């Protein structure tokens, strides 16, 4: 039974990531997705390796190997929690097949453990990309004994259980609170807010790591004493990861006990949480005149309603807009300092204008709104197919939503960058235009990729958005385009001004976008009808 359930859970995950779903019956290449995911994980690992290198040497030199591990484990655990908490909520408590599985002769505890195992795999990947580089850095700068080579790998496997246990508690809290909120939009906004605060804290910590490191090294003894006294579990984890067998034994016992306790608590309440009806105040409809509108506005409103009422959709596809605004504000405050830093270099304004555009474009890619939009139609696709509405309008409504939610923020950020950097007139004009053109490119590219790679039989929206192959492929394609532009600029920087380069880039992405939209309006409409 366990094997069958596990097979179902994994096939659900694999099917969503690796297999397109349509009546056309075509399938996409599994190897491509695997390569994409390996590349992304590799990129994250490189970032953590650099961070670990910066932390390892000074702390090992100060004899604070355990503090190095306590910090890297802390970072990886936070990353693991962030990567799994919403998956825990939607995958364990909100899965569409909870009722089906609970109606079968399966113990609720087994359903829970299978779901948790699937999420453990995801948490493990998140933690491993941080912990493995930390271990490699330690091998370079530290002096690991033979025992360390046994203990550390076990720690890498064990610690995601701790993150998973914490995610379970947070997911449980979400499952208790979120259904009590009547408005789906408010739910999504609250979840988005929590995530943004979390990410902001993480980025602030990351950006100040050097200052923090300096502080830790300077005050290593007092910090060490404080952690030993007040945060003993963290000290123990640090010592265990360093290779101390006694601390390792304590950590193993601690993690297993915590996980077992959480598991027992959850399995006893699983049915109640997963399928129980919560008492919510029912809004009573009072008759009033209904406004009429056009089909175009109805489709756009429908897309917007879906966006704001779907927590995973909003959460995973809004970060770009938030960061663009944050970047604009940061530029207003710190822009002068940045300009002063490079003011001695002649002609730097042009290079900085191009770099600023690349940064804005990179943030724009974090709003992959169109990329999962067809997949998210799921079982309701029949509505769009049966209603007397042109497929062009349906596809265009998705692009319009993407533009409305991303282009204004991108435009504002580019204008602020333009004002701060004051490049040549042509570059100044092209900066905001490039950001808008690149947004259109991302919107149309995401849509066409999703049209080729739809997956309509998902069981929860988080999986449909977060683990969607179309999101991965479209984002990677956008990065490839950005890298190509970057290479091209540095090859031509000697004889092409920033303004001309941005003009060519803007025209290029605009032409590609128009070609994609033309394809969408012809073959794309047919493909949508045949899904």
């Amino acid at each position, binding site marked *: 039974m366990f094997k069958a359930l596990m097979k179902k859970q994994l096939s659900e995950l694999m099917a969503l990531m690796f297999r397109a779903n349509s*009546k056309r*019956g075509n399938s996409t290449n599994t190897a491509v997705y695997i390569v994409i995911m390996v590349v992304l994980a590799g990129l994250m690992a490189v970032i953590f390796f650099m961070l670990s290198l910066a932390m390892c040497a000074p702390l090992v030199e100060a004899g604070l190997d355990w503090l190095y591990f306590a910090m890297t484990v802390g970072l990886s655990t936070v990353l693991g929690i962030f990567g799994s908490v919403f998956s825990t909520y939607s995958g364990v408590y909100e899965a569409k097949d909870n009722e089906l599985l609970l109606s079968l002769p399966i113990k609720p505890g087994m359903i829970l453990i299978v779901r948790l195992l699937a999420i453990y795999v995801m948490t493990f990947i998140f933690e491993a990309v941080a912990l493995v580089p930390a271990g490699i850095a330690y091998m370079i700068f530290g002096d690991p004994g033979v025992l360390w080579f046994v203990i550390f790998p076990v720690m890498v496997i064990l610690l995601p259980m701790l993150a998973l246990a914490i995610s379970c508690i947070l997911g449980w809290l979400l499952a208790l609170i979120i259904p009590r909120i009547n408005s*789906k939009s408010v739910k999504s906004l609250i979840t988005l807010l929590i995530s943004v605060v979390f990410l902001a804290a993480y980025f602030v910590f990351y950006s100040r790591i050097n200052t923090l490191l300096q502080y830790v090294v300077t005050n290593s003894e007092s910090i060490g004493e404080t952690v030993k006294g007040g945060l003993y579990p963290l000290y123990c984890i640090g010592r265990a990861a360093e290779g101390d067998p006694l601390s390792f034994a304590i950590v193993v016992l601690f993690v297993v006990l915590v996980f077992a306790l959480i598991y027992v608590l959850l399995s006893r309440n699983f049915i109640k949480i997963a399928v129980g009806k919560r008492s*919510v105040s*029912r*809004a*009573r*409809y*009072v*008759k009033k*005149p*209904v*406004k*009429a*509108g*056009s*089909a175009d*506005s*109805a*489709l756009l*409103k*429908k897309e917007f*309603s*879906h966006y704001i*009422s*779907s927590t995973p959709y909003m959460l995973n596809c809004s970060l770009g807009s938030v960061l663009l605004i944050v970047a604009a504000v940061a530029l207003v405050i710190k822009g002068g300092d940045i300009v002063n830093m490079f003011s001695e270099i002649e002609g730097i304004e042009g290079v900085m204008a191009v770099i600023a555009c690349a940064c804005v474009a990179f943030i724009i890619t974090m709003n992959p709104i169109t990329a999962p939009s067809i997949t998210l139609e*799921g*079982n*309701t696709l*029949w*509505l769009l*197919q*049966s*209603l*007397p*509405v*042109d497929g062009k309008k349906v596809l265009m409504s998705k692009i319009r939503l993407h533009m409305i939610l991303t282009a204004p923020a991108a435009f504002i950020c580019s204008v602020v960058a333009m004002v701060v950097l004051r490049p040549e007139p042509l570059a100044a004009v092209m900066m905001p235009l490039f950001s808008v053109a690149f947004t259109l490119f991302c919107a149309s590219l995401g849509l066409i990729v999703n049209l080729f790679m739809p997956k309509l039989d998902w069981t929860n929206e988080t999986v449909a958005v977060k683990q969607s192959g179309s999101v991965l492929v479209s984002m990677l394609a956008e990065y490839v385009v950005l890298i190509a532009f970057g290479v091209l600029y540095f090859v031509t920087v000697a004889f092409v001004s920033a303004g001309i380069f941005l003009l060519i880039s803007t025209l290029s992405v605009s032409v590609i976008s128009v070609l994609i939209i033309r394809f969408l309006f012809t073959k794309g409409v047919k493909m949508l*009808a*045949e899904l």
Partner: protein
Amino acid sequence: MLRIENLTKTYGDKRAVDDLSLHIQKGEIYGFIGHNGAGKTTTIKACCGILGFDAGEIYVDGISIKTDPLSCKAKIAYIPDNPDLYDFMTGIKYLGFIADIFGVGKNERNERIGKYSDMFELTRDLAQPISAYSHGMKQKLAIISALIHDPKLVIMDEPFVGLDPKASHLLKGLMRDICLGGGAIFFSTHVLEVAEKLCDKVAIIKGGRLIRSGTMEEVRGDSSLEEVFLELEDGGSAF
């Protein structure tokens, strides 16, 4: 109102619908009967423009669904067997969305929403998100949305599944009213008693092929529809 000519639809090697021809005229309630997997839903989806087909033609009020699907869809109302509606909308927003797509005027939509939601006792729940609706409530909402543009042809796939007895009764009355108003109804069902009492004409399909069709009297003769259906299912004599 609906003319299906030599419709053929295949899935890989399997012929889901094989050379099917039917003609549903104005004022008729036409029942479509067959066992599971006989090709009823495939035929219905092809008539609604949801599913393409390999051969044949489908005309809605004289317009080909192949050449002008939007005009055909504008005349049709489709109610699927499993009403998967937009869970993220409230009932009233969903009705507004459908009315906007069909271009229903402000006065007409207000009148029809009021009339049908009162009739199906759904008015007070229209402010609720559809995700909070039961299967039957979703089915009622799908029916109300189908009637909002005053369709000429209503195509329904197992419309009575999930409806309470009162709503079933109301729907039967509405079906008759639509036909009296010059419209037509084409629906599939497994409930042979309902088909027998309600339909003017009936078609029986087996393995994608039409095995009998005509007026209720022609199809059942002196037997009951159930007896004829079971006999045809066992014997499978082609029409």
